[in-house]
Protein backbone atom coordinates (compact mmCIF):
# COMPACT_ATOMS: atom_id res chain seq x y z
CA UNK A 1 0.00 0.00 0.00
CA UNK A 2 2.78 2.34 0.95
CA UNK A 3 4.70 1.23 -2.09
CA UNK A 4 2.52 3.31 -4.39
CA UNK A 5 3.36 6.71 -2.95
CA UNK A 6 6.95 5.57 -2.64
CA UNK A 7 7.00 4.70 -6.32
CA UNK A 8 5.59 8.09 -7.19
CA UNK A 9 8.25 9.68 -5.05
CA UNK A 10 10.97 7.74 -6.75
CA UNK A 11 9.64 8.73 -10.13
CA UNK A 12 9.53 12.34 -9.02
CA UNK A 13 13.12 12.33 -8.09
CA UNK A 14 14.04 10.12 -11.00
CA UNK A 15 14.16 12.75 -13.67
CA UNK A 16 16.27 15.00 -11.48
CA UNK A 17 18.64 12.14 -10.70
CA UNK A 18 18.93 11.28 -14.37
CA UNK A 19 19.72 14.88 -15.12
CA UNK A 20 22.32 15.02 -12.41
CA UNK A 21 24.13 12.01 -13.84
CA UNK A 22 24.26 13.71 -17.21
CA UNK A 23 25.92 16.75 -15.73
CA UNK A 24 29.62 16.59 -15.09
CA UNK A 25 29.95 15.11 -11.67
CA UNK A 26 31.54 17.37 -9.17
CA UNK A 27 31.64 16.39 -5.53
CA UNK A 28 31.91 19.85 -4.08
CA UNK A 29 28.82 21.97 -3.95
CA UNK A 30 30.55 25.13 -5.06
CA UNK A 31 31.76 25.70 -8.56
CA UNK A 32 35.04 23.97 -9.15
CA UNK A 33 37.27 25.43 -11.80
CA UNK A 34 36.92 23.40 -14.96
CA UNK A 35 39.00 24.03 -18.03
CA UNK A 36 37.17 25.66 -20.87
CA UNK A 37 36.97 23.66 -23.97
CA UNK A 38 39.43 24.68 -26.65
CA UNK A 39 37.14 25.94 -29.33
CA UNK A 40 37.64 25.44 -33.00
CA UNK A 41 38.10 28.68 -34.84
CA UNK A 42 34.87 29.85 -36.40
CA UNK A 43 32.78 27.14 -34.73
CA UNK A 44 30.43 27.27 -31.84
CA UNK A 45 31.31 24.36 -29.55
CA UNK A 46 28.28 24.38 -27.26
CA UNK A 47 25.40 24.38 -29.70
CA UNK A 48 25.24 20.63 -30.09
CA UNK A 49 23.78 19.87 -26.68
CA UNK A 50 21.30 22.72 -26.75
CA UNK A 51 19.37 21.85 -29.88
CA UNK A 52 20.01 25.13 -31.63
CA UNK A 53 22.55 26.43 -34.11
CA UNK A 54 22.93 30.12 -34.70
CA UNK A 55 22.92 31.21 -38.32
CA UNK A 56 26.36 31.10 -39.92
CA UNK A 57 26.46 34.77 -40.85
CA UNK A 58 25.89 35.96 -37.30
CA UNK A 59 28.90 37.38 -35.47
CA UNK A 60 27.26 37.62 -32.08
CA UNK A 61 26.53 35.41 -29.13
CA UNK A 62 23.10 33.89 -28.89
CA UNK A 63 21.08 33.47 -25.73
CA UNK A 64 18.36 30.90 -25.33
CA UNK A 65 15.26 30.22 -23.27
CA UNK A 66 15.67 29.42 -19.56
CA UNK A 67 16.82 25.94 -18.74
CA UNK A 68 14.25 23.56 -17.32
CA UNK A 69 16.17 22.81 -14.17
CA UNK A 70 18.46 25.72 -13.51
CA UNK A 71 16.24 28.53 -14.87
CA UNK A 72 19.38 30.03 -16.36
CA UNK A 73 19.58 31.03 -19.99
CA UNK A 74 22.32 29.24 -21.93
CA UNK A 75 24.56 31.28 -24.19
CA UNK A 76 26.21 30.04 -27.37
CA UNK A 77 29.41 32.02 -27.74
CA UNK A 78 30.69 33.26 -31.04
CA UNK A 79 34.33 32.51 -31.75
CA UNK A 80 35.73 35.07 -34.20
CA UNK A 81 38.30 33.80 -36.71
CA UNK A 82 41.01 36.12 -35.39
CA UNK A 83 40.34 35.78 -31.72
CA UNK A 84 43.01 37.44 -29.64
CA UNK A 85 44.33 35.69 -26.51
CA UNK A 86 42.51 38.22 -24.35
CA UNK A 87 39.22 37.60 -26.12
CA UNK A 88 39.75 33.88 -25.77
CA UNK A 89 40.35 34.24 -22.03
CA UNK A 90 37.11 36.18 -21.77
CA UNK A 91 35.12 33.63 -23.71
CA UNK A 92 36.52 30.75 -21.69
CA UNK A 93 35.81 32.53 -18.43
CA UNK A 94 32.21 33.06 -19.51
CA UNK A 95 31.83 29.46 -20.59
CA UNK A 96 33.23 28.26 -17.33
CA UNK A 97 30.95 30.50 -15.31
CA UNK A 98 27.96 29.37 -17.35
CA UNK A 99 28.76 25.70 -16.85
CA UNK A 100 29.36 26.21 -13.17
CA UNK A 101 26.15 28.13 -12.61
CA UNK A 102 24.19 25.59 -14.59
CA UNK A 103 25.58 22.73 -12.50
CA UNK A 104 24.90 24.44 -9.22
CA UNK A 105 21.37 25.61 -9.86
CA UNK A 106 20.18 22.49 -11.66
CA UNK A 107 21.39 20.35 -8.80
CA UNK A 108 20.07 22.75 -6.20
CA UNK A 109 16.62 23.13 -7.72
CA UNK A 110 16.29 19.40 -8.20
CA UNK A 111 17.28 18.80 -4.60
CA UNK A 112 14.71 21.34 -3.49
CA UNK A 113 11.95 19.72 -5.44
CA UNK A 114 12.84 16.29 -4.28
CA UNK A 115 13.14 17.20 -0.63
CA UNK A 116 9.89 19.08 -0.84
CA UNK A 117 8.13 15.99 -2.18
CA UNK A 118 9.64 13.87 0.54
CA UNK A 119 8.56 16.34 3.18
CA UNK A 120 5.00 16.50 1.87
CA UNK A 121 4.88 12.73 1.73
CA UNK A 122 6.10 12.31 5.28
CA UNK A 123 3.73 14.92 6.63
CA UNK A 124 0.76 13.48 4.82
CA UNK A 125 1.67 10.05 6.06
CA UNK A 126 1.85 11.38 9.61
CA UNK A 127 -1.61 12.83 9.15
CA UNK A 128 -2.80 9.52 7.75
CA UNK A 129 -3.58 10.87 4.32
CA UNK A 130 -2.64 9.60 0.90
CA UNK A 131 -0.66 11.51 -1.68
CA UNK A 132 -3.72 11.76 -3.88
CA UNK A 133 -7.29 12.19 -2.70
CA UNK A 134 -10.44 10.54 -4.10
CA UNK A 135 -10.57 12.84 -7.09
CA UNK A 136 -7.03 11.86 -8.02
CA UNK A 137 -5.70 15.32 -7.29
CA UNK A 138 -2.46 15.69 -5.48
CA UNK A 139 -2.85 16.43 -1.81
CA UNK A 140 -0.95 19.46 -0.58
CA UNK A 141 0.07 21.08 2.60
CA UNK A 142 -0.71 24.70 3.24
CA UNK A 143 1.88 27.42 3.48
CA UNK A 144 2.17 27.29 7.25
CA UNK A 145 2.93 23.59 7.22
CA UNK A 146 5.49 24.06 4.46
CA UNK A 147 7.19 26.81 6.47
CA UNK A 148 9.07 24.25 8.53
CA UNK A 149 10.46 22.72 5.38
CA UNK A 150 11.53 26.08 3.96
CA UNK A 151 13.32 27.03 7.13
CA UNK A 152 15.04 23.70 7.31
CA UNK A 153 16.09 23.73 3.68
CA UNK A 154 17.51 27.22 3.89
CA UNK A 155 19.61 26.49 6.96
CA UNK A 156 20.85 23.20 5.52
CA UNK A 157 22.08 24.87 2.37
CA UNK A 158 23.46 28.00 3.97
CA UNK A 159 27.12 27.06 3.71
CA UNK A 160 26.65 25.88 0.14
CA UNK A 161 25.16 29.24 -0.74
CA UNK A 162 27.97 31.15 0.97
CA UNK A 163 30.54 29.31 -1.11
CA UNK A 164 28.57 29.81 -4.27
CA UNK A 165 28.14 33.51 -3.57
CA UNK A 166 31.84 34.06 -3.13
CA UNK A 167 32.53 32.12 -6.29
CA UNK A 168 29.90 33.95 -8.28
CA UNK A 169 31.05 37.41 -7.20
CA UNK A 170 34.64 36.58 -8.10
CA UNK A 171 33.67 35.25 -11.51
CA UNK A 172 31.36 38.15 -12.21
CA UNK A 173 34.04 40.71 -11.44
CA UNK A 174 36.65 38.84 -13.47
CA UNK A 175 34.41 38.53 -16.49
CA UNK A 176 33.35 42.17 -16.38
CA UNK A 177 36.95 43.30 -15.99
CA UNK A 178 38.00 41.15 -18.94
CA UNK A 179 35.12 42.59 -20.95
CA UNK A 180 36.44 46.03 -20.16
CA UNK A 181 39.92 45.08 -21.29
CA UNK A 182 38.62 43.54 -24.51
CA UNK A 183 36.49 46.60 -25.24
CA UNK A 184 39.47 48.86 -24.67
CA UNK A 185 41.72 46.73 -26.88
CA UNK A 186 39.11 46.72 -29.64
CA UNK A 187 38.67 50.48 -29.38
CA UNK A 188 42.42 51.05 -29.67
CA UNK A 189 42.59 48.67 -32.62
CA UNK A 190 39.78 50.54 -34.34
CA UNK A 191 41.44 53.89 -33.70
CA UNK A 192 44.72 52.63 -35.14
CA UNK A 193 42.90 51.29 -38.20
CA UNK A 194 41.08 54.59 -38.63
CA UNK A 195 44.34 56.51 -38.35
CA UNK A 196 45.94 54.27 -40.96
CA UNK A 197 42.99 54.82 -43.32
CA UNK A 198 43.05 58.57 -42.81
CA UNK A 199 46.80 58.70 -43.46
CA UNK A 200 46.27 56.84 -46.72
Amino acid sequence: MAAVPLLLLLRAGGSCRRHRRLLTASSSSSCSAGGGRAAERGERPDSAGLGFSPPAHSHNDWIGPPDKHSNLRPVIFYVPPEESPLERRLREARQEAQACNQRFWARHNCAFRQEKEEFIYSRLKAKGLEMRDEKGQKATLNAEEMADFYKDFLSKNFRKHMQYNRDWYKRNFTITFLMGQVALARALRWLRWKKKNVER
Partner: protein
Amino acid sequence: MSAARPPRALAGLFVWRLKGAGTRHIPCPFLHLYRAANDRLITFQYFNFLKRMYVTQHNRDLSQRAKPKSDPVVSPFHELQQLDQEKKVIHKISPVSPAHQPWPETSGRHELREVKSPAETEATAVRAEPREDRQWKEMKLRLDELPGILARLSKIKLTALVVSTASAGFAMAPVPFDLPCFLLASLGTGLASCAANSINQFFEVPFDSNMNRTKNRPLVRGQISPLLAVCFAASCGVPGIALLTLGVNPLTGALGAFNIFLYTCCYTPMKRMSIANTWVGAVVGAIPPVMGWTAATGTLDAGALLLGGILYSWQFPHFNALSWGLREDYSRGGYCMMSVTHPGLCRRVALRHCLALIGLSAVAPVLDITTWTFPIISLPINLYISYLGFRFYRDADRSSSRKLFFCSLWHLPMLLLVMFTCKKSALEKEDKGDLLGKGESHGRAVEIRLP
Protein backbone atom coordinates in the same frame (compact mmCIF):
# COMPACT_ATOMS: atom_id res chain seq x y z
CA MET B 1 8.16 47.37 -20.18
CA SER B 2 7.48 49.67 -23.08
CA ALA B 3 9.89 52.54 -23.36
CA ALA B 4 7.18 54.71 -24.81
CA ARG B 5 5.02 54.82 -21.72
CA PRO B 6 6.35 57.34 -19.19
CA PRO B 7 6.25 56.29 -15.56
CA ARG B 8 3.13 57.65 -13.96
CA ALA B 9 4.88 58.77 -10.87
CA LEU B 10 6.86 61.32 -12.85
CA ALA B 11 3.74 63.18 -13.83
CA GLY B 12 3.26 66.30 -11.78
CA LEU B 13 6.24 65.69 -9.60
CA PHE B 14 6.58 69.05 -8.02
CA VAL B 15 5.42 70.96 -4.99
CA TRP B 16 4.57 74.61 -5.10
CA ARG B 17 4.35 76.94 -2.25
CA LEU B 18 2.68 80.21 -3.02
CA LYS B 19 3.75 82.61 -0.35
CA GLY B 20 1.26 85.39 -0.97
CA ALA B 21 -1.90 83.47 -1.49
CA GLY B 22 -1.20 81.08 1.32
CA THR B 23 -2.71 78.29 -0.72
CA ARG B 24 -1.04 74.98 -1.11
CA HIS B 25 -1.16 72.59 -3.97
CA ILE B 26 -1.59 69.05 -2.87
CA PRO B 27 1.39 67.21 -4.28
CA CYS B 28 0.16 65.40 -7.34
CA PRO B 29 2.37 62.34 -7.12
CA PHE B 30 0.60 61.19 -3.98
CA LEU B 31 -2.80 61.39 -5.60
CA HIS B 32 -1.40 59.50 -8.53
CA LEU B 33 0.04 56.91 -6.21
CA TYR B 34 -3.22 56.55 -4.37
CA ARG B 35 -5.21 56.17 -7.53
CA ALA B 36 -2.65 53.82 -8.90
CA ALA B 37 -2.88 51.64 -5.82
CA ASN B 38 -6.32 50.63 -6.93
CA ASP B 39 -5.24 50.06 -10.45
CA ARG B 40 -4.27 46.50 -11.06
CA LEU B 41 -1.76 47.54 -13.71
CA ILE B 42 0.56 48.85 -11.05
CA THR B 43 3.35 46.61 -9.97
CA PHE B 44 4.54 46.15 -6.46
CA GLN B 45 7.74 47.88 -7.40
CA TYR B 46 5.76 51.07 -7.81
CA PHE B 47 5.29 51.38 -4.10
CA ASN B 48 8.50 49.90 -2.91
CA PHE B 49 10.60 52.50 -1.18
CA LEU B 50 13.17 49.89 -0.55
CA LYS B 51 15.51 49.20 -3.35
CA ARG B 52 14.77 45.55 -3.00
CA MET B 53 13.41 43.87 -6.01
CA TYR B 54 13.12 40.29 -5.07
CA VAL B 55 9.57 40.72 -4.06
CA THR B 56 6.82 39.66 -6.29
CA GLN B 57 4.71 41.70 -8.56
CA HIS B 58 1.48 43.32 -7.59
CA ASN B 59 -0.69 40.88 -9.41
CA ARG B 60 -2.71 39.74 -6.46
CA ASP B 61 -0.64 36.66 -6.25
CA LEU B 62 2.13 37.13 -3.81
CA SER B 63 3.39 33.61 -3.81
CA GLN B 64 5.82 31.86 -6.01
CA ARG B 65 6.32 28.19 -6.56
CA ALA B 66 9.32 26.31 -7.82
CA LYS B 67 8.40 24.34 -10.83
CA PRO B 68 10.14 22.90 -13.84
CA LYS B 69 9.43 24.66 -17.08
CA SER B 70 6.50 22.93 -18.74
CA ASP B 71 7.34 21.35 -22.07
CA PRO B 72 5.05 21.82 -25.02
CA VAL B 73 5.95 18.24 -25.96
CA VAL B 74 5.43 15.30 -23.65
CA SER B 75 8.85 14.54 -22.33
CA PRO B 76 10.51 12.08 -20.00
CA PHE B 77 9.88 14.67 -17.33
CA HIS B 78 6.16 14.19 -17.70
CA GLU B 79 5.81 12.41 -14.37
CA LEU B 80 7.57 15.17 -12.56
CA GLN B 81 5.29 17.71 -14.14
CA GLN B 82 2.19 15.80 -13.20
CA LEU B 83 3.27 15.58 -9.63
CA ASP B 84 3.99 19.26 -9.60
CA GLN B 85 0.64 20.27 -10.89
CA GLU B 86 -0.68 20.96 -7.48
CA LYS B 87 -3.80 22.96 -7.17
CA LYS B 88 -1.83 25.90 -5.95
CA VAL B 89 0.68 26.06 -8.81
CA ILE B 90 0.23 29.38 -10.49
CA HIS B 91 2.38 29.24 -13.57
CA LYS B 92 0.94 27.38 -16.45
CA ILE B 93 2.68 28.64 -19.53
CA SER B 94 0.39 27.70 -22.35
CA PRO B 95 0.26 29.73 -25.52
CA VAL B 96 -3.07 28.14 -26.39
CA SER B 97 -5.17 29.16 -23.45
CA PRO B 98 -4.80 32.22 -21.28
CA ALA B 99 -3.04 31.67 -17.99
CA HIS B 100 -5.69 30.41 -15.67
CA GLN B 101 -4.75 29.36 -12.21
CA PRO B 102 -7.23 27.96 -9.72
CA TRP B 103 -6.51 29.55 -6.40
CA PRO B 104 -8.81 28.05 -3.82
CA GLU B 105 -8.03 30.55 -1.10
CA THR B 106 -9.07 33.70 -2.83
CA SER B 107 -12.50 34.84 -3.83
CA GLY B 108 -13.73 34.83 -7.40
CA ARG B 109 -13.00 38.54 -7.72
CA HIS B 110 -9.31 37.98 -7.63
CA GLU B 111 -8.75 36.30 -10.95
CA LEU B 112 -5.08 35.55 -10.79
CA ARG B 113 -2.71 35.58 -13.65
CA GLU B 114 0.96 34.94 -13.70
CA VAL B 115 2.41 38.14 -15.02
CA LYS B 116 5.51 37.58 -17.13
CA SER B 117 6.81 41.08 -17.68
CA PRO B 118 7.15 43.69 -15.01
CA ALA B 119 4.99 46.21 -16.76
CA GLU B 120 2.44 44.56 -19.02
CA THR B 121 -0.47 42.82 -17.46
CA GLU B 122 -2.74 42.75 -20.44
CA ALA B 123 -3.77 39.33 -21.64
CA THR B 124 -1.99 39.60 -24.96
CA ALA B 125 1.30 40.38 -23.29
CA VAL B 126 0.89 37.44 -20.95
CA ARG B 127 0.30 35.11 -23.86
CA ALA B 128 2.93 36.59 -26.15
CA GLU B 129 5.75 36.64 -23.61
CA PRO B 130 5.99 32.87 -23.08
CA ARG B 131 6.26 32.33 -26.82
CA GLU B 132 9.04 34.89 -27.13
CA ASP B 133 10.68 33.36 -24.14
CA ARG B 134 11.15 30.06 -25.98
CA GLN B 135 13.20 31.59 -28.77
CA TRP B 136 16.90 32.00 -29.10
CA LYS B 137 17.91 35.61 -29.43
CA GLU B 138 20.98 37.25 -30.79
CA MET B 139 22.89 39.11 -28.13
CA LYS B 140 23.16 42.32 -30.00
CA LEU B 141 22.39 45.65 -28.46
CA ARG B 142 19.65 47.39 -30.40
CA LEU B 143 19.71 51.13 -30.01
CA ASP B 144 15.97 51.54 -30.32
CA GLU B 145 15.48 49.16 -27.41
CA LEU B 146 18.16 50.78 -25.30
CA PRO B 147 16.00 53.35 -23.45
CA GLY B 148 13.58 50.64 -22.36
CA ILE B 149 16.41 48.36 -21.33
CA LEU B 150 18.10 51.08 -19.29
CA ALA B 151 14.78 51.99 -17.70
CA ARG B 152 14.34 48.42 -16.53
CA LEU B 153 17.96 48.17 -15.48
CA SER B 154 17.64 51.25 -13.30
CA LYS B 155 14.21 50.20 -12.03
CA ILE B 156 12.86 53.51 -13.20
CA LYS B 157 9.53 53.26 -11.39
CA LEU B 158 11.19 52.56 -8.10
CA THR B 159 13.61 55.39 -8.76
CA ALA B 160 10.68 57.70 -9.37
CA LEU B 161 9.26 56.67 -6.02
CA VAL B 162 12.55 57.26 -4.27
CA VAL B 163 12.70 60.69 -5.84
CA SER B 164 9.20 61.43 -4.63
CA THR B 165 10.11 60.53 -1.05
CA ALA B 166 13.13 62.80 -1.36
CA SER B 167 10.91 65.59 -2.61
CA ALA B 168 8.57 64.93 0.30
CA GLY B 169 11.56 65.49 2.56
CA PHE B 170 12.39 68.66 0.69
CA ALA B 171 8.82 69.88 0.90
CA MET B 172 8.60 69.29 4.63
CA ALA B 173 11.71 71.29 5.39
CA PRO B 174 10.86 74.54 7.18
CA VAL B 175 12.53 76.83 4.66
CA PRO B 176 11.20 78.83 1.73
CA PHE B 177 10.87 76.69 -1.33
CA ASP B 178 13.78 76.99 -3.71
CA LEU B 179 12.94 75.55 -7.12
CA PRO B 180 16.45 75.21 -8.66
CA CYS B 181 17.71 73.49 -5.53
CA PHE B 182 14.70 71.21 -5.51
CA LEU B 183 15.23 70.21 -9.13
CA LEU B 184 18.92 69.58 -8.64
CA ALA B 185 18.31 67.53 -5.53
CA SER B 186 15.62 65.45 -7.27
CA LEU B 187 17.78 64.87 -10.32
CA GLY B 188 20.80 63.97 -8.24
CA THR B 189 18.80 61.57 -6.09
CA GLY B 190 17.27 60.00 -9.19
CA LEU B 191 20.66 59.43 -10.79
CA ALA B 192 22.08 57.96 -7.60
CA SER B 193 19.11 55.62 -7.34
CA CYS B 194 19.55 54.50 -10.98
CA ALA B 195 23.19 53.72 -10.30
CA ALA B 196 22.45 51.74 -7.17
CA ASN B 197 19.69 49.71 -8.81
CA SER B 198 21.86 48.89 -11.81
CA ILE B 199 24.68 47.61 -9.64
CA ASN B 200 22.19 45.55 -7.66
CA GLN B 201 20.97 43.86 -10.82
CA PHE B 202 24.55 43.35 -11.95
CA PHE B 203 25.31 41.43 -8.75
CA GLU B 204 22.21 39.29 -8.73
CA VAL B 205 21.91 37.77 -12.20
CA PRO B 206 21.70 34.04 -11.35
CA PHE B 207 19.44 34.68 -8.36
CA ASP B 208 17.13 36.88 -10.38
CA SER B 209 16.88 34.14 -13.01
CA ASN B 210 15.46 31.80 -10.43
CA MET B 211 12.71 34.02 -9.13
CA ASN B 212 9.66 34.65 -11.22
CA ARG B 213 9.27 38.31 -10.60
CA THR B 214 12.82 39.16 -11.52
CA LYS B 215 13.48 36.72 -14.34
CA ASN B 216 12.70 39.24 -17.07
CA ARG B 217 15.38 41.70 -16.14
CA PRO B 218 17.70 42.91 -18.89
CA LEU B 219 20.85 41.25 -17.59
CA VAL B 220 19.07 37.96 -17.02
CA ARG B 221 17.74 38.02 -20.56
CA GLY B 222 21.08 39.00 -22.01
CA GLN B 223 19.76 42.19 -23.56
CA ILE B 224 22.68 44.13 -22.18
CA SER B 225 26.18 43.09 -21.20
CA PRO B 226 27.42 43.34 -17.60
CA LEU B 227 30.08 45.77 -18.76
CA LEU B 228 27.49 48.11 -20.16
CA ALA B 229 25.44 47.82 -16.99
CA VAL B 230 28.43 48.84 -14.88
CA CYS B 231 29.28 51.70 -17.24
CA PHE B 232 25.72 52.91 -17.08
CA ALA B 233 25.79 52.75 -13.31
CA ALA B 234 29.02 54.73 -13.21
CA SER B 235 27.72 57.29 -15.68
CA CYS B 236 24.65 57.82 -13.50
CA GLY B 237 26.26 57.59 -10.12
CA VAL B 238 29.24 59.87 -10.63
CA PRO B 239 27.32 62.80 -12.13
CA GLY B 240 24.50 62.23 -9.65
CA ILE B 241 26.72 62.46 -6.61
CA ALA B 242 28.72 65.29 -8.15
CA LEU B 243 25.50 67.16 -8.78
CA LEU B 244 24.39 66.68 -5.21
CA THR B 245 27.74 67.64 -3.74
CA LEU B 246 28.45 70.64 -5.91
CA GLY B 247 25.00 71.78 -6.93
CA VAL B 248 23.15 71.24 -3.66
CA ASN B 249 25.45 70.76 -0.68
CA PRO B 250 28.19 68.35 0.37
CA LEU B 251 26.06 66.80 3.10
CA THR B 252 23.43 65.67 0.63
CA GLY B 253 26.14 64.38 -1.68
CA ALA B 254 27.71 62.42 1.14
CA LEU B 255 24.36 60.92 2.10
CA GLY B 256 23.74 59.94 -1.50
CA ALA B 257 27.11 58.27 -1.84
CA PHE B 258 26.65 56.52 1.48
CA ASN B 259 23.25 55.25 0.43
CA ILE B 260 24.60 53.83 -2.81
CA PHE B 261 27.35 52.09 -0.86
CA LEU B 262 24.92 50.80 1.75
CA TYR B 263 22.58 49.41 -0.84
CA THR B 264 25.07 47.83 -3.24
CA CYS B 265 27.85 46.72 -0.92
CA CYS B 266 26.01 46.03 2.32
CA TYR B 267 22.39 45.24 1.66
CA THR B 268 22.75 43.24 -1.56
CA PRO B 269 25.34 40.76 -0.30
CA MET B 270 23.74 40.63 3.14
CA LYS B 271 20.47 39.40 1.67
CA ARG B 272 22.13 36.05 1.34
CA MET B 273 24.01 36.07 4.60
CA SER B 274 21.90 37.26 7.47
CA ILE B 275 18.40 38.44 8.34
CA ALA B 276 19.91 41.77 9.46
CA ASN B 277 19.62 42.78 5.81
CA THR B 278 16.05 43.90 6.47
CA TRP B 279 17.20 46.54 8.92
CA VAL B 280 19.92 47.73 6.58
CA GLY B 281 17.40 47.90 3.79
CA ALA B 282 15.07 49.94 5.97
CA VAL B 283 17.86 52.47 6.50
CA VAL B 284 18.41 52.57 2.74
CA GLY B 285 14.77 53.43 2.29
CA ALA B 286 14.86 56.03 5.03
CA ILE B 287 17.76 58.03 3.67
CA PRO B 288 16.13 59.68 0.60
CA PRO B 289 13.71 61.89 2.58
CA VAL B 290 16.61 62.84 4.85
CA MET B 291 18.51 63.79 1.70
CA GLY B 292 15.59 65.93 0.58
CA TRP B 293 15.53 67.70 3.91
CA THR B 294 19.28 68.32 3.99
CA ALA B 295 19.13 69.57 0.41
CA ALA B 296 16.66 72.23 1.51
CA THR B 297 18.12 73.20 4.86
CA GLY B 298 21.74 72.12 4.62
CA THR B 299 21.67 70.61 8.08
CA LEU B 300 20.81 67.24 9.51
CA ASP B 301 18.37 68.20 12.22
CA ALA B 302 15.65 66.49 14.17
CA GLY B 303 13.04 66.96 11.48
CA ALA B 304 15.14 65.10 8.95
CA LEU B 305 15.65 62.26 11.35
CA LEU B 306 11.95 62.11 12.11
CA LEU B 307 11.03 61.85 8.45
CA GLY B 308 13.70 59.22 8.02
CA GLY B 309 12.32 57.46 11.06
CA ILE B 310 8.82 57.36 9.62
CA LEU B 311 10.08 55.85 6.37
CA TYR B 312 12.26 53.42 8.33
CA SER B 313 9.36 52.19 10.41
CA TRP B 314 7.11 51.89 7.40
CA GLN B 315 9.49 49.48 5.66
CA PHE B 316 8.87 46.73 8.18
CA PRO B 317 5.13 46.13 7.94
CA HIS B 318 5.47 46.62 4.20
CA PHE B 319 8.28 44.20 3.58
CA ASN B 320 7.58 41.62 6.26
CA ALA B 321 4.00 41.24 5.11
CA LEU B 322 5.11 40.82 1.54
CA SER B 323 7.88 38.37 2.32
CA TRP B 324 5.38 36.13 4.09
CA GLY B 325 4.10 34.92 0.75
CA LEU B 326 7.52 34.46 -0.81
CA ARG B 327 8.97 32.02 1.65
CA GLU B 328 9.32 29.23 -0.87
CA ASP B 329 11.26 31.38 -3.33
CA TYR B 330 13.51 32.75 -0.62
CA SER B 331 14.21 29.32 0.70
CA ARG B 332 15.10 27.93 -2.70
CA GLY B 333 17.04 30.99 -3.75
CA GLY B 334 19.11 31.05 -0.61
CA TYR B 335 17.89 34.40 0.68
CA CYS B 336 18.05 34.87 4.44
CA MET B 337 14.79 36.50 5.37
CA MET B 338 13.01 36.68 8.70
CA SER B 339 9.85 35.23 7.23
CA VAL B 340 11.71 31.99 6.51
CA THR B 341 14.10 31.64 9.44
CA HIS B 342 12.41 33.57 12.26
CA PRO B 343 8.72 33.82 11.44
CA GLY B 344 7.72 34.92 14.93
CA LEU B 345 10.22 37.74 14.89
CA CYS B 346 9.01 38.75 11.45
CA ARG B 347 5.48 39.34 12.66
CA ARG B 348 6.54 40.94 15.94
CA VAL B 349 8.75 43.44 14.19
CA ALA B 350 6.02 44.33 11.72
CA LEU B 351 3.56 45.02 14.54
CA ARG B 352 6.13 46.90 16.57
CA HIS B 353 6.86 49.29 13.74
CA CYS B 354 3.20 49.83 12.92
CA LEU B 355 2.80 51.07 16.48
CA ALA B 356 5.97 53.11 16.18
CA LEU B 357 4.39 54.98 13.29
CA ILE B 358 1.71 56.26 15.65
CA GLY B 359 4.38 57.43 18.06
CA LEU B 360 6.45 59.09 15.38
CA SER B 361 3.44 60.91 14.00
CA ALA B 362 2.85 62.32 17.47
CA VAL B 363 6.43 63.55 17.71
CA ALA B 364 6.12 65.63 14.52
CA PRO B 365 4.30 68.58 16.10
CA VAL B 366 6.66 68.51 19.06
CA LEU B 367 9.52 69.14 16.68
CA ASP B 368 7.57 71.94 15.03
CA ILE B 369 7.38 70.20 11.70
CA THR B 370 3.61 69.95 11.62
CA THR B 371 0.70 71.28 13.54
CA TRP B 372 -1.13 69.15 16.10
CA THR B 373 -3.77 68.30 13.53
CA PHE B 374 -1.33 65.89 11.94
CA PRO B 375 -1.28 63.18 14.63
CA ILE B 376 -5.02 63.56 14.99
CA ILE B 377 -5.84 63.23 11.30
CA SER B 378 -3.29 60.49 10.75
CA LEU B 379 -4.48 58.50 13.75
CA PRO B 380 -7.20 56.59 11.87
CA ILE B 381 -4.85 55.35 9.16
CA ASN B 382 -2.10 54.59 11.65
CA LEU B 383 -4.54 52.70 13.84
CA TYR B 384 -5.83 50.79 10.87
CA ILE B 385 -2.41 49.64 9.79
CA SER B 386 -1.62 48.74 13.38
CA TYR B 387 -4.80 46.72 13.56
CA LEU B 388 -3.82 44.85 10.40
CA GLY B 389 -0.36 44.41 11.87
CA PHE B 390 -1.90 42.88 14.95
CA ARG B 391 -4.02 40.55 12.86
CA PHE B 392 -0.93 39.49 10.95
CA TYR B 393 0.87 38.90 14.23
CA ARG B 394 -1.92 36.82 15.62
CA ASP B 395 -3.14 34.92 12.55
CA ALA B 396 0.16 34.52 10.67
CA ASP B 397 -1.53 33.50 7.46
CA ARG B 398 -1.58 34.53 3.83
CA SER B 399 -4.73 36.64 3.94
CA SER B 400 -3.60 38.76 6.88
CA SER B 401 -0.18 39.28 5.33
CA ARG B 402 -1.73 40.36 2.07
CA LYS B 403 -4.09 42.76 3.78
CA LEU B 404 -1.22 44.35 5.66
CA PHE B 405 0.87 44.63 2.53
CA PHE B 406 -1.83 46.27 0.45
CA CYS B 407 -2.63 48.64 3.29
CA SER B 408 1.00 49.73 3.45
CA LEU B 409 0.84 50.61 -0.23
CA TRP B 410 -1.65 53.39 0.29
CA HIS B 411 -0.75 54.15 3.87
CA LEU B 412 2.56 55.84 3.16
CA PRO B 413 1.45 58.21 0.38
CA MET B 414 -1.54 59.16 2.49
CA LEU B 415 0.57 59.78 5.54
CA LEU B 416 3.01 61.95 3.64
CA LEU B 417 0.15 63.83 2.03
CA VAL B 418 -1.50 64.52 5.37
CA MET B 419 1.85 65.51 6.78
CA PHE B 420 2.37 68.00 4.02
CA THR B 421 -1.06 69.52 4.39
CA CYS B 422 -0.50 69.87 8.12
CA LYS B 423 2.93 71.34 7.69
CA LYS B 424 3.57 74.19 10.05
CA SER B 425 3.97 77.21 7.81
CA ALA B 426 6.92 79.49 8.28
CA LEU B 427 4.45 82.34 8.70
CA GLU B 428 2.91 80.70 11.70
CA LYS B 429 6.32 80.15 13.16
CA GLU B 430 7.31 83.74 12.57
CA ASP B 431 4.12 84.96 14.17
CA LYS B 432 4.78 82.68 17.08
CA GLY B 433 8.28 84.06 17.30
CA ASP B 434 6.90 87.61 17.18
CA LEU B 435 4.41 86.86 19.86
CA LEU B 436 7.00 85.35 22.10
CA GLY B 437 9.47 88.10 21.37
CA LYS B 438 6.83 90.73 22.03
CA GLY B 439 9.08 93.07 20.10
CA GLU B 440 7.43 93.49 16.75
CA SER B 441 4.34 95.34 15.78
CA HIS B 442 1.48 93.80 13.89
CA GLY B 443 2.42 95.92 10.92
CA ARG B 444 5.73 94.17 10.59
CA ALA B 445 3.99 90.82 10.44
CA VAL B 446 1.78 92.11 7.63
CA GLU B 447 4.83 93.22 5.70
CA ILE B 448 6.23 89.73 5.82
CA ARG B 449 3.04 88.32 4.31
CA LEU B 450 3.22 90.44 1.20
CA PRO B 451 4.88 88.68 -1.74
